[in-house]
């Protein structure tokens, strides 16, 4: 059905989408919490910064990543020198690109869920002796779960579809950074690549529906758990 090369792209896409979501989720929860609950000078700026990857063309986002996290980038050089972390041309870099692009979506979904959490319940938890942090993990976070799930789903979906930032930042290195969208992109630029593009598009669709189905199941279970069903 798929060529080995295409299977590689599919596997890589899944890997990138999973890790991008996995790593960005905790940070997204933290950011959402800060944006929804904390108030400090410069919050508006942080807010803007978070949504920036959404509003900028993805190619520009990729270019900015290149400037900062490339081997010669002003952060990237230290990542390499100090930790031996190389992002450019690597799967790790593709993961970073996907994470950055999906970050605003994740944060937004989680933030909405957070704002819907009844603060009266948080207050009640504190009167029962729970510290703010404890309240967050024992009350706020469980009540936010549907939102976090929704955020994760968006993150995975957009990571699966991410193209512009990835190709600009880490280019197309076979087996390293060549995700499904890159493969599709290539296919659409070859005069007779339509069949391949279609096959890969179908794979994307199946992946998307699959993850939605899974998310739906998990969601229903969570809702039953937190008594919102």
């Amino acid at each position, binding site marked *: 059905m798929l060529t080995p090369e295409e299977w590689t792209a599919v596997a890589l896409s899944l890997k990138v989408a999973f890790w991008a979501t996995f790593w960005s989720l905790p940070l997204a929860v933290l950011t959402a919490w800060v944006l929804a609950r904390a108030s400090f000078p410069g919050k508006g700026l942080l807010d803007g910064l978070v949504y920036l990857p959404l509003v900028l063309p993805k*190619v520009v986002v990729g*270019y900015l990543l*290149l*400037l900062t996290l*490339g*081997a*010669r*980038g002003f952060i990237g050089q230290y990542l390499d020198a100090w930790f031996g972390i190389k992002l*450019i*041309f690597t799967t790790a870099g593709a993961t970073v690109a996907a994470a950055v692009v999906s970050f605003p979506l994740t944060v937004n979904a989680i933030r909405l869920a957070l704002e819907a959490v009844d603060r009266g319940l948080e207050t009640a938890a504190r009167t029962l002796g729970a510290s703010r942090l404890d309240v967050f993990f024992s009350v706020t976070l469980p009540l936010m779960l549907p939102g976090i799930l929704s955020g994760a789903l968006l993150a995975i979906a957009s990571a699966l579809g991410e193209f*512009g930032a990835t*190709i*600009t930042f880490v*280019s*197309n*290195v076979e087996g390293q950074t060549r995700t499904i969208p*890159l493969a599709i*992109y*290539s*296919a*659409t*630029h*070859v*005069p007779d*690549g339509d069949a391949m593009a279609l096959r890969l598009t179908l794979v994307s669709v199946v992946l998307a529906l699959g993850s939605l189905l899974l998310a739906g199941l998990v969601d229903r279970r969570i809702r039953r758990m937190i008594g919102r069903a």
Partner: protein
Amino acid sequence: APGALSAGEAPGDPPTVFAAASLTNAFQDIGKLYQQKTGRPVRFSFAASSALAKQLEAGAPAAIFASADNRWMDYTEGKDLTLKVTRVTPIGNSLVLIMPADAAKDVTIDASFNWLAFLGADGRIATGLTDSVPAGIYAKAALTSLGAWDTVKPRIVGAESVRAALALVERGEAVAGIVYSTDAAIARNVKVVATFPAGSHPPVEYPFEIVKGQDNPATRALLDFLTGPEAREVYTKYGFAVK
């Protein structure tokens, strides 16, 4: 917006030229000259040749298609979208090897050129996507004919456009790049260290054709202007090989 929905190709609209993105600067200059001379404006749409070809196929009302390689022109011809009889190929390009200006060392590319020594331990070579972006396709062809493809392939990073490949070399992220000479000419901080032998790859050509149904005197005049002497001057200025 009612306004947004009603905008379209009215009869009096200027003709639209579909041009490969690499022609952006040259065509913009030529378009200005054309308007100065004839008083008639021209509209351009710059995108990847593939995207433009697909748009033509979907019925985009363009007048002229200027492709960055023959394959997509053959494609539109084959679909009976553009007129083979009007085909002209006024310009070409050459494929060059570039390096960051600060690390540049002139080399000569031939069958015996040691790519691995040139690239160093883990150096990368940037070019367009080798199966879709024209520059990348030519690079692959050239390396293959030089017998170096298999050794170099793992080091190749394919960018979404020649410009992106250029950026990787400019930034020093890649040790070298394979791009068109025109691209190298407009980039800062990179230096051409070698030109690929002309025979190592199919000629880089920019075929122009008139879109089916648009073959009228006005379009002909425009096509003539795009291949005329004023245009040739502009092409030269941007480093194209004028035929």
